[in-house]
């Protein structure tokens, strides 16, 4: 890893101010993702600003500080009751050791696990190269996107992102030029050549906190994921789903797919298949089919589509049973 100067910020806004004065800096939450990227020299910053010392204000129901660890989030009783999808996503992520240090902000802003991105021996358009090593017939892409973008077939790795999007959480960002709050679904953007970051955050802009609404949609939410290995593994596909049912009909629905595209994917066609309908076996099956109707899997990852459809069905079947 390249040498860098290391700073500890007292608060997230203070970190954002510090970053504004630096040219080639990154923020560090728990460092569980960042450290690996530094070691492999995928990122070579001159400054690293740690958020780990940032004080968290007194707890308010539904407000998650960006520096909250995944373990703390998983233990939050309000979240467990009012946003079960978020609870399960935090609880299932990574390993106990990692959950104890990894932060919510870091989880949302973590890099893709694309092994070509993380190995500088290979070409990667995200890193600025002309080609993408993953997008050839002879590449290894069993965990890559089944909804690839023309420039990049990476799979978004975060558990938490689909869950927060499904419960319609709001992300509060800080930047010296002005703070903003946005729907979690709007945090991510399509990949572009030379842009390693998947979020729309401006240079130096940081997530300060996330608010989860107390809503019927969030309360009736769930998260299911599929991974090949129980221990120590990322999900190959994940689904976060939430429905608001009134008078026997779905009046609002959010279905979000993880690890199938370069960003968490709202399955809007699947959501539309449910709205105005009762939640039953037939509508569930329709929604599952709609969720993956546009999938274009690569030669090694067709299985993700088959499993993804199943997960949508299992998630919705779970919501049907939920009160």
């Amino acid at each position, binding site marked *: 890893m*390249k040498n860098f100067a290391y700073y500890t910020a007292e608060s997230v806004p203070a970190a954002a101010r510090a970053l504004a004065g630096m040219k080639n800096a990154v923020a560090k939450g728990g460092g569980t993702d960042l450290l690996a990227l530094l070691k492999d020299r995928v990122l070579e910053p001159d400054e690293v600003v740690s958020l780990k010392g940032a004080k968290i204000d007194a707890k308010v129901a539904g407000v998650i500080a960006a520096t909250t660890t995944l373990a703390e989030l998983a233990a939050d009783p309000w979240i467990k009751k009012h946003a079960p999808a978020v609870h399960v996503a935090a609880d299932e992520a990574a390993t106990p050791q990692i959950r104890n240090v990894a932060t919510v902000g870091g989880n949302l802003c973590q890099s893709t696990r694309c092994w070509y991105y993380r*190995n500088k021996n290979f070409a990667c358009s995200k890193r600025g190269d002309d080609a993408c*090593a993953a997008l050839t017939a002879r590449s*290894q892409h069993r965990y890559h996107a089944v909804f690839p973008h023309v420039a990049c077939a990476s799979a978004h790795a975060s558990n938490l992102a689909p869950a927060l999007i499904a419960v319609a959480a709001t992300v509060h960002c800080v930047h010296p030029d002005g703070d903003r709050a946005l729907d979690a679904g709007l945090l991510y953007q399509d990949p572009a050549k030379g842009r390693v970051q998947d979020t729309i955050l401006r240079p130096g802009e940081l997530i300060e906190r996330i608010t989860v609404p107390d809503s019927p949609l969030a309360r009736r939410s769930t998260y299911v994921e599929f991974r090949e290995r129980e221990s*120590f593994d990322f999900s*190959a596909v994940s689904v976060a789903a939430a429905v608001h049912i009134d008078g026997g009909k779905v009046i609002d629905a959010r279905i979000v797919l993880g690890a199938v595209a370069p960003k968490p994917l709202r399955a809007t066609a699947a959501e539309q298949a449910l709205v105005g309908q009762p939640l039953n076996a037939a509508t569930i099956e329709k929604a599952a089919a709609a969720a993956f109707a546009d999938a274009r899997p690569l030669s090694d*990852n067709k299985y993700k589509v088959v499993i993804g459809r*199943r997960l949508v069905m299992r998630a919705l079947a779970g919501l049907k049973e939920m009160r």
Partner: protein
Amino acid sequence: MSDLKLGFPGNEKNENFETPDNVAPPWDATTKFSVMGKPHPRLEAEDKVTGRAKYSYDIRFPDLIYAKMLRSPHASARVKSIDISKAKALPGVLYSEARQGLTVRYAGQGVAGIAAETEEILDDALALIEVEYEVLPCAVTVEDAMAPGAPQVLNGPNVGGRPGRGKERVDAVHKDADIVVEAEYRTQVQTHSCFETHGCVCKFDDDGSLTVWASTQSTFFTKTAIARAARVRPENVTVITEHMGGGFGSKFGADDWDRFCVLAARATKRPCRYLLDRRAEHLIAGNRPDSIQKCRFSANKNGTLMGAWVESWGTAGVGRGAGVQNPTIYRFRAAGSEQKDVRTHAGRGRAFRAPRHPQGVFALEGMIDEVAFALGMDPLALRQKNDAHPVRSAQWPVGQKAIGWRKTPRGNGAVKIGYGCAGSRWGHNARPGDAVRCRIGKDGSVLFANGSQDLGTGTRTLIAILGAEELGVPLSFVDVRLGHTTDPYGHASGGSVTAPSIAPVVKQAAWLAKRELLEHIAKKIGGDPKKMELTDGDVLGGKKKITFKQACALLPVDSIDVTGDSRNVFRVPRFSREVAGVQFARVAVDTETGLVKVQKIVSVQDCGQIVNELTVRSQMLGGVIQGLSYALFENRLLDRNTGDMVNADLLNYKIAGARDMPEIETIPFNVAQGGTTAGVSSLGEPATVPTAGAIANAVSHAIDARVRSLPITPDKVLAALGAL
């Protein structure tokens, strides 16, 4: 003439045997043991869990320097130029090497090397080396290397191997058989993934002598190889391996990186350390070759196996050594194989825990199941009918009962539960050549010493138990020193030779020391030394009873110091020709997602004469765990464009973890084997052989469709179910 009783309850036989005068009398089925066979924690257990145990990885000196090599990102290339000047100019860089003009034949091959004051400087220096490559076409799969016009990996053709013999005879038997079954099986490349990576720490003393702390399965091979690399006389080299973090067949001597390390230490006159990083460990430090096995088996309606012919292809990268143990185990009228060994642009294969066996047995046992289904026979019954081994024949029903064998799968809904089994065979690999020193001090201390290493299997404790048993003292009286080449010779730990080979020699050393002690004591307390014995720490049969410690205090010399060797201790009749084992698996398969969860494994293993029940069980557990990991997860993935490995870490190279573990029931079979005076057998390797085969058969049983390729990942299960 005395009788030797061999075997196990229910199958015992007597052999005539006369113990020569100078040899410890052999143990057999009638021996009453006081230390042997019970569960003993490892002597170094506390040191290991508290971190006191020092591995080569942990050896540090104040003036230690660090070495590392720059590795080729291309699998096939010519090095046009290397500019190392910027790296050399970096303060703290002490030594370097540039391999100008090198032809690269696999990704990860060392191109240049640096030694520096700190690991951080080293890392920066490596990043400053500029290499210009002429990239050449590569072939990293068997298919690519066999395609017309494929690039030639080394001199000579890519495809090697021995022609098969006896195909005509097998074909003729097939013709006579009632049914013939044909199928193709495939296995993947598995890397050893030793917890402690390969490498060493080298230190020259002022007098020119060299000490090497090596993570090795053979201290003595390493000594010779390092001496040659450093141009030092072997007698001036000491290799030390107190503890090591796994080898599995990949650590038999000095490697390229060890040579670089010792040259750096010599040139700089500083102790130097080079232990591979995880990526290099995957790329260049060994692997189990893959295989494609085309099988044609036949049988008669009454369940008699007839013919078996296997044609196989596999790659050990730039090395040779791909091949499979298939067909084997069962009695066929006629059987044979033709095995092709295909070179590819990839890191060299190395011996890996039971080389050739797990992959061969996976295909063999799959075929046996396929034959059984074609015959409408219970697969277990078919095996029992065609298995002549006296021990395995007794093991099948034991495993059957422990797993709760069922002919029909269970489960309703998406999750189906299936059962499978598989067998193994291995050699009784006791090899002459070891020597063990036994020293009994006037102060009552007892030390056994041997210069070979404890691979992690518990050899240190094994030696202590054997020594205590033969001496007739409690285990707590005994110390063991292992892993210093200044002590007597010991074999490389490979082929599961260690325990069976060293056991009779430890026994012999202990017996010689005991006889000498009793002769001294007889003179002091009166009595016939031939009639005196040491039992449970007491000297019995003399004019008066005294304790071992009292006896030692009476010694007229400071210590008794004897060396036992392997002469005469190997000429003992043997019970059965091969080591036998069977395993059974119960798995749950989610037919909607293809996910396999192994619920239970039963391992029934011939352990010969059990020395330590605890380490016997832990070898069996480790064998199952590694076999399960091979069956479901592990897979070296190479990018076919450049030949570099995409999952050279421990996240994407998936190894079974705690939550993937099934219930594992170990049923050690204690068999008085004979063969040596100790009767101890090989265990470490056979314990891993049947696991993948048993799991694969259980999966196929559960879903009523066959997965013929390892690892059994969800996509393959879904494909077998026709869902992809």
